[in-house]
């Protein structure tokens, strides 16, 4: 089949007809092709399209390995990673609450193996910082959804403020509580 989507009748002798004739074989006048195809493989984004592309086995250009990580993309993927990480913690916490031994059993177990105050401070900071960052960046996302701070310089400045506020909040909460 031809590689050119020439849908309209071509005027004999026209530039398009010459081009088409040069690139692909013209059908004989009494041989007509019917495009009754409803296959989706040509429609980008469908499952058939991805399957066909995979079967073709074409090499893919490098992306994650070569594109420099910037504040914007770094904060964005951090928002996702912290959210997913806390999701895992949530499911783990819920699992602990319904064990036959009971939740208090696990608290006692943790207390028998708990390290000293310094390490506990560090551990609390490490556990709380992703939550604070996710919360503050969540508000940054909500500002975007309201249409604010969408210019690139604002995105960068609010991003830096986000990281600063998260760190301050974490240290304040770990110290105070």
């Amino acid at each position, binding site marked *: 089949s031809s590689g050119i989507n020439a849908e309209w009748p071509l005027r004999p002798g026209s530039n398009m007809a010459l081009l088409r004739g040069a690139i692909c074989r013209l059908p004989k006048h009494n041989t007509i092709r019917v495009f009754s*195809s409803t296959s989706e493989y040509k429609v980008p984004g469908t*499952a058939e399209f991805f399957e066909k592309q995979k079967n073709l086995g074409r090499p893919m250009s490098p992306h994650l390995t070569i594109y420099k990580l910037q504040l914007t993309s770094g904060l964005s993927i951090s928002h996702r990673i912290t*959210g997913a990480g806390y999701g895992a913690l949530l*499911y783990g916490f819920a699992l602990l609450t319904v064990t036959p031994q009971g939740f208090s059993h696990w608290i006692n177990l943790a*207390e028998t193996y708990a390290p000293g105050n310094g390490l*506990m401070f560090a551990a609390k900071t490490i556990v709380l910082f992703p939550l604070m960052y996710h*919360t503050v960046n969540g508000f940054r996302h*909500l500002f975007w959804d309201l249409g604010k701070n969408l210019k690139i310089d604002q995105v960068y400045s609010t991003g830096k403020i986000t990281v600063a506020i998260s760190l301050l909040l974490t240290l304040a909460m770990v110290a105070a509580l």
Partner: protein
Amino acid sequence: AVVSTQSGHYGRGVLHSLTMLMSLAGRPLCRLTRQAIKPIIPTLSQVSHLSSGSPVTHWKAERYVSVLTFGAIIGAAAYPCLAVDHSLAILIPLHTHWGIEQILTDYVHGKATSKICQVLLYVCTGLTIISLLYFNQHDIGITQGIKDLWNIKQRDPAELH
């Protein structure tokens, strides 16, 4: 499928006209038909949801639940009570579920694996909500549980003996 036919003596006129029409207008007709039936046929991402509402409503609900979750956490810090615990037990898993659902939609391809992961996520979230509600009702509750976790302290060796 691409069908190639040679004109015969009989029915040449009808077949000729029909195939001329299809060769001229086949692609636009296909495109128009696909556009017409698209709203009726669910897209790949909607197929894996149990109930497909409007994506705009879903988007708005996500934002409202985010704000409500934050409010509930502040409420738990300020006025801990069973009602706040129950609202946390529903809002936090809901927010988490929608977030992880977006992650799955972005990174898990393939009809079968995507569907399996969606179902697994629904199961996990459902079990989590049930567990947390039970924990609130019959045990110390989420707020007290988090406080207990926060106050894990090394036991004084003198106390043990």
